[in-house]
């Protein structure tokens, strides 16, 4: 994260609504995907709407790449901000075909965002066959792909996405996520992505902003923030870490791949990857168990020695979260307090992690 004011987004808002208040003061990087994560009612959408200029906070200070969008009496209206916004549910203009929705955005495009060709965007989102349809003739997933394409045609310098997948069923989500990953990879466009789904955070986010009750409760790089035992939002079964890794080896006989991370390597299912690909893997806290030695015969493929870095509280008093260090990478395991006691595990000791499941998330 670059601290200079000219190449990031600084947002400070105080907004009071009946039964809800938003009070944030944050600086966000202007590259990659920043996930604004929280449960419903946490104020994440309100924050995004303030940044877009749909809501006018009573007190607001907002600068993007050195341009002031809001400060005191200054309030740049939404249509003069070089941003685009993808809404949760269908937001296509119903009186226009998909193609005309795209050209509507193209004609009003800012002139300083990344140059994009209509054809490139159409291919990026796989929507060529849908162009002559009206929104009412499209499925929810198709409409959302058109909406994302339309936002990109506007050549924004900042893309705001408000739970773009929340209104879709699981199959549709899986259909659209790869497109968002591609767009993240191929377009050099900062994205603010509001979501309440840990899976989307794991797959997409580089930076994580966690919100609760209208306040920012954690902010930082995804890997460090998720590995912090005091991560303030209860994720329950979804607690875990996301680790950057690179594909190192294919094992065609057993249909497995080996990925290297900073400090070790793990085996996981082959998913048609290429050696050298940068990926991220997600290991859930519930999938790690601890043992005193690594020699027991077991069906578990991944057993790694690790140092206990920290032991913290979990939601349930009988459970503990254990932060483990392998090389310079951290894992978090959820184990019972009784096991910790029986195994006599404490901070600084070396133990063996048995990892039951590793997911390739990107």
């Amino acid at each position, binding site marked *: 994260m670059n601290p200079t004011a000219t190449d990031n987004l600084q947002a400070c808002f105080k907004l009071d609504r009946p039964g809800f208040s938003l009070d944030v003061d944050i600086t966000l990087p202007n590259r990659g995907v920043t996930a604004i994560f929280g449960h419903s009612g946490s104020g994440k959408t309100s924050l995004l709407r303030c940044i877009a200029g749909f809501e006018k906070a009573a007190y607001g200070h907002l600068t993007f790449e050195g341009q002031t969008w809001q400060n005191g009496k200054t309030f740049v209206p939404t249509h003069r901000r070089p941003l685009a916004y993808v*809404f949760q549910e269908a*937001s296509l*203009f119903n009186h226009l075909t998909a193609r005309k929705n795209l050209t*509507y955005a193209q004609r*009003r*495009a800012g002139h300083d965002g990344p140059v994009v060709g209509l054809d490139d965007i159409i291919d990026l989102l796989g929507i060529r066959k849908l162009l002559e349809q009206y929104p009412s003739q499209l499925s929810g997933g198709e409409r959302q792909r058109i909406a994302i394409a*339309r936002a990109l045609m*506007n050549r924004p310098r900042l893309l705001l996405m408000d739970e773009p997948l929340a209104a879709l069923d699981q199959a549709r989500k899986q259909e659209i996520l790869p497109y968002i990953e591609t767009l993240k990879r191929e377009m050099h466009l900062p994205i603010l992505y509001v979501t309440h789904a840990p899976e989307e955070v794991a797959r997409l986010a580089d930076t994580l902003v966690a919100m609760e009750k209208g306040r920012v409760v954690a902010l930082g790089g995804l890997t460090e923030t998720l590995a912090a035992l005091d991560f303030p939002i209860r994720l329950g079964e979804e607690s875990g870490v996301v680790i950057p890794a690179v594909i190192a080896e294919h094992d065609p006989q057993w249909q497995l791949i080996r990925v290297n991370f900073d400090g070790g390597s793990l085996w996981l299912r082959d998913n048609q990857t290429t050696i050298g690909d940068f990926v991220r893997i997600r290991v859930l806290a519930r999938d790690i168990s601890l043992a005193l030695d690594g020699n027991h015969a077991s069906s578990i493929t991944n057993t790694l020695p690790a140092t206990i870095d920290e032991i913290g509280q979990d939601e349930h008093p009988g459970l503990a979260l254990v932060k483990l260090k392998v090389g310079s990478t951290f894992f978090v395991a959820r184990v019972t307090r009784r096991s910790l006691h029986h195994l006599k595990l404490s901070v600084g000791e070396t133990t063996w992690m048995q990892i039951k499941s590793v997911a390739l998330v990107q």
Partner: protein
Amino acid sequence: MFFSEADIHTLLLSIKLATVVTLILLILGTPIAWWLSQTRSRFKGVVSSIVALPLVLPPTVLGFYLLLAMGPHGLLGQLTQWLGLGTLPFTFEGLVVASVFYSMPFVVQPIQNAIEGLGQRPVEVAASLGASPLDTFFTVVLPLAKPGFITAGILGFAHTIGEFGVILMIGGNIPEETRVISIQIYDHVESMNYAEAHKLAATMVVFSFAVLLTLYTLTRQTHNKTQIHAP
């Protein structure tokens, strides 16, 4: 059915009046409806009430105050005299001004309802894509709320055609200047000329029915959510 020459004049005058008033109301009422649909101002209630007032006021009351306002000592009257236009009562222009007030709610409300029915979403989407409010109005709101505008135009026209009390108060009964259908029917009845009255009255019934039928058919076809406040 054939009409006397005098009846034809009143018919043409009524149609001319309704056409002019409808056009003025669509131009004048649209920004008012747009403002009412978008504003969070505390004056919204006041403006809404003023617009809706003709719905509940007896036309004679409205006509009476318009007569005073447009008269030589009224505010409107002084303005028109200062502009060198004389005073408006008992002129066609006077009827137009009065009818604009009288039919205002029938045009503003359907447009406002149609725009409010769209919600803020299309407006926000357009803004996020760089469309100015004016651009948004013409390229997004107008096409999406079209059924509401059609309803407004038809209702405004039909309501103006049928008006009586206000016109009687401020327009009197001057042939080819202010004598519209409803006044003519009243005159025929006053002079016991029922056959002539029937011709015009029946024409009005057929016309009104045709208007409403068109309106409801159109409304069903376009599946719009615009509410119709039948007169």
